[in-house]
């Protein structure tokens, strides 16, 4: 049996992730696993969206695979992927030293802020789909956006009380940066020579082809409608977490339909409206469902 090695984030993608886990775990976060559904961003994970609601403190960190079908480039673009990883940290309420913690986390994965230019550039975040918005920045490292840093102000149409700080690291970008690699497929995955390309290149090729060319659009339209119907069914039966999952499903199916180019500009707005309606209804239902319990613990608090 081999002893646990030192983390080597400068030469290993997985060690970079593990170093972040070590850091955030040491700073009071639950280390969660990815949500087992296809989604476009880590923010969709219930550990972010649903947990941003309500008064209870919540500190968690996790990796979330993200799928953006239209970003697929058949493995030919060194920077763009239809499947990639985000590292999410949510701290509720945000601690006063959240920027300092973030800076320290960059140190842990090998970024020296006196050698590299770290900047907080205004970038507010809004997700009409989730009825959510927040203020914050995109964090630049030598001009590259490596993290989205947001103070959630509203979620599901409700004021965040208290406000949560959300950090979303773009893992591949950071790793390319740290490892000094120009092509994502050249990233050293394990520090022993297995590359990101070994793991994902074929996947990108096939999935790009499926997203853009193969996926059966009739089936996708059918899936969309079924997810929508099931979401309504869940809402009617007061299981808002299940309803929320169906909203995520509908959102992803919509993205696939977009990639297949079968949704016209006019229809697009209407589909987005339907997804938004599902997501917001689920968040609202969840908040209403939980509100009595929250109020019991925090008598001063109201939705």
């Amino acid at each position, binding site marked *: 049996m081999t002893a646990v090695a030192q983390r080597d984030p400068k030469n290993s993608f997985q060690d970079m992730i593990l170093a972040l886990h070590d850091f955030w775990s040491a700073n009071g976060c639950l280390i969660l696993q990815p949500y087992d559904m296809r989604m476009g961003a880590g923010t969709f994970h219930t550990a972010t969206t649903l947990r941003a609601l309500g008064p209870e403190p919540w500190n968690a960190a996790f990796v979330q695979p993200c799928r953006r079908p239209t970003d697929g480039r058949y493995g030919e673009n060194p920077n763009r992927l239809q499947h990639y990883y985000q590292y999410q940290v949510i701290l509720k309420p945000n601690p006063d030293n959240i920027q300092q913690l973030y800076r320290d986390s960059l140190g842990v994965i090998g970024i020296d802020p006196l050698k590299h230019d770290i900047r907080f550039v205004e970038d507010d975040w809004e997700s009409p789909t989730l009825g959510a918005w927040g203020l914050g920045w995109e964090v630049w490292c030598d*001009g590259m956006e490596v993290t989205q840093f947001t103070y959630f*102000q509203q979620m599901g149409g409700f004021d965040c009380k208290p*406000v949560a700080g959300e950090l979303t690291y773009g893992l591949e970008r950071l790793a390319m940066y740290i490892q000094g690699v120009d092509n994502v497929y050249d990233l050293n995955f394990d520090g022993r020579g297995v590359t990101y390309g070994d793991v994902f290149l074929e996947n990108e090729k096939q999935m790009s082809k499926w997203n853009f060319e193969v996926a059966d659009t009739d089936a996708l339209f059918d899936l969309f409608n079924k997810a929508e119907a099931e979401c309504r069914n869940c809402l009617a039966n007061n299981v808002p977490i299940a309803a929320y999952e169906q909203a995520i499903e509908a959102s992803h199916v919509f993205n696939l339909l977009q990639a297949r180019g079968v949704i016209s500009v006019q229809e697009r707005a209407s589909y987005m409206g339907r997804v938004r309606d599902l997501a917001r209804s689920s968040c609202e239902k969840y908040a209403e469902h939980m509100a009595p319990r929250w109020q019991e613990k925090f008598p001063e608090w109201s939705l």
Partner: protein
Amino acid sequence: MSDFLLELRSEEIPARMQAGARADLERLFRAEMAAAGVSPGAVSVWSTPRRLALIACDLPLATEAVSEEAKGPPEGAPDQAIDGFCRKNGVTRDQLELRDVKGRNTYFAVIEKPGRAVADVLAEAIPAIVRAFPWPKSMRWGEASLSTESLRWVRPLSGVVALLDSDVVECEVGGVASGRLTRGHRFHSNGDIAIAGVADYAATLREAHVIVDQEERQNLIREQAAKVAADAGLTLVADEGLVIENAGLTEWPQPLLGRFDEEFLDVPPEVIQLSARTNQKYFVCEDSAGKLANAFVCTANIASSDGGAAIVDGNRKVLAARLSDARFFWELDQKTSLADHAKKLERITFHEKLGTVADKVERVAKLARWLVEEGIVTPSPSSREGGDRGQPGAPSPEAPAFAGTREELADLAEQAARLCKADLVTEMVGEFPELQGLMGGYYACAEGLPDAVADAIRDHYKPVGQGDDVPTAPVTVAVSLADKLDSLAGFFFEAMPPSGSKDPYALRRSAFGTLSIITKKGLRLNLRSLFLRTALPFAVRKVHAPSPFKLHRSKVMLDQILIDQNLAQKNGGDVQDLKNRIAATRDSLLDFFADRLKVQQREAGVRHDLIDAVFALGGEDDLVRLLARVHALQYFMDTEDGTNLLAGYKRAANILRKEGWEDTAERIARTGDEDPMENVDDPQMRAIYAQRGANGGLSYTPEAAEKALIDALDAAEPQAATAIEAEDFAAAMAALASLRAPIDRFFEEVTVNADEEIKRTTRLGLLARFRAAVHNVADFSRIEG
């Protein structure tokens, strides 16, 4: 006297908000001081990404003591009244003074307000300023945000430094207590640093790698960026917006030059510059020949331990990724012809009431062709003010003369119009919407379309504002006019004109552009016909019917518009209603253009009363003729003849008004369908005026001066009429000028208000004739002076 320092430290303030925040901080501070009766000396405000600071000099240590008096009831008034007066003024009865007021002893309350320590005033002012701060967007944060009542700031507020000279002004806002501790540069400085006194602030921060004065940072960036470019043998492309933005993003700015792969220079320079500027906030450089160089200047926020090598290398990679994306779009877009791109426009809604962009393109193509076929846009490349300068690096910088026939020009105009919106569906314009037009021009060139077509696609949005180039190449002019007119007519037809400050479809800009092109090119056209023609397709849309209307020679009349009654009814349309809407569109566009023209001419320095004097004639819808008249009038009114004629005119008009003289030949009210010109200068009408005025042969012997005026009018009227006919407005004014001496003499020697009714009427008629003659040139009643 003392100096005051306030520093509000927060997490990174957006660069674009800092200038406004500085102004707000000073305004709020001054208001608080004024309310407390404190007048500060010099006030400086500074900002960095992490702090807003204010230093006010020469504050007094205390406000002045004030003694206020209030007059109360007279002695002997009921106790109730006296007690009430005491309560109101916060004094006791034995503190009241009795004074004699007009022989009555009256109670006075004297309230001594002692001076307050300015430190106390400031301690109250600081939280008030913070709470009242009008950030464009603000947020809550931290544990306190459990309640929505918690303090709001642009980003979390982390510290308040408040010093009066070297003493802390104690206060607290949103859980943050004031003190003398602040932080230096986020990475170059560690932990708290103490500010000893107001005078030490800037220097202490500088030691902690913070240049607190934004202007100093801006100067540093401007100079250093130019220097690193010069050191590399290049010239920085100056960009003041980027200077300010980078100064708002840094506390210790360090401009650094980097290079990108020369291969990317294949991509159009505008794309590279935009990508570098918008996404990365980099400056770009030019080589000695003025061509875009493969270099960028980024502004770091640290003096890096390796001299910036790692930073430059990182930024180079980011830019390379951006540019390779741009090149990917550039190459991908060219795999599809513009004609094929244009097919996708069917899927883009232009406006729900006006159909898709493809529908618009169809209308614009037909209109562009019509403008050429009707001779409004001609193959002549001539322009009044020299040629188009074109865009640097654009496919064809010089607007070429058009050598072909009218039919060939019409074909090219239609072709360009059909392709002019195709780039909206390209990847590049999707990424950089501000490159619309330009990219279409590049792609047209790349696929070998005629230069005139490529230029028209590139420039058809022009002019987009004051000072922008006005197109003059014939194909471009046809497409540009057609595109703008179509939008104007469409939104007016659907009753969506701009109102007040709301102009969501930029119709004022479209009208301005249309006017600029017409006047610059000297295009002769009849606006009423043009607007009818342009509004027509929107009526046709309503009934989904092809319109069998006939058009000839730039003159479209409403009664020539034939819409198939049966088809219309089948589709729920009412032909008369549609015709009314077309007419209404035309009329409101005429009014709209008149307004825009007035604004345009005013801005060009033409007196507004002269513009009004010509507009008041009404009916004129040839802009070129109208402006010629305005300009001749402007010239004439600067001469002595003009001034004197105006004086004579005003005297005549006053007498006529006083005598209640009424013109029977009032201008005919606009019905919407008369020939616009028929009333302005109609020889028959002139005869009527003449008869009306002079009343045929005179029944008495006129005085010499009277006779002289009649003779002068007899001579001047036909001269002016002929000159107007020939559009020689200077000559028309000269003819009027010949009336100046006779009218002056007439007023000197002739009694208008004669005892004999016949003389009185005749002489008033003569004055009316004089007034009418002047009115044929301009409505002098509108002219001031």
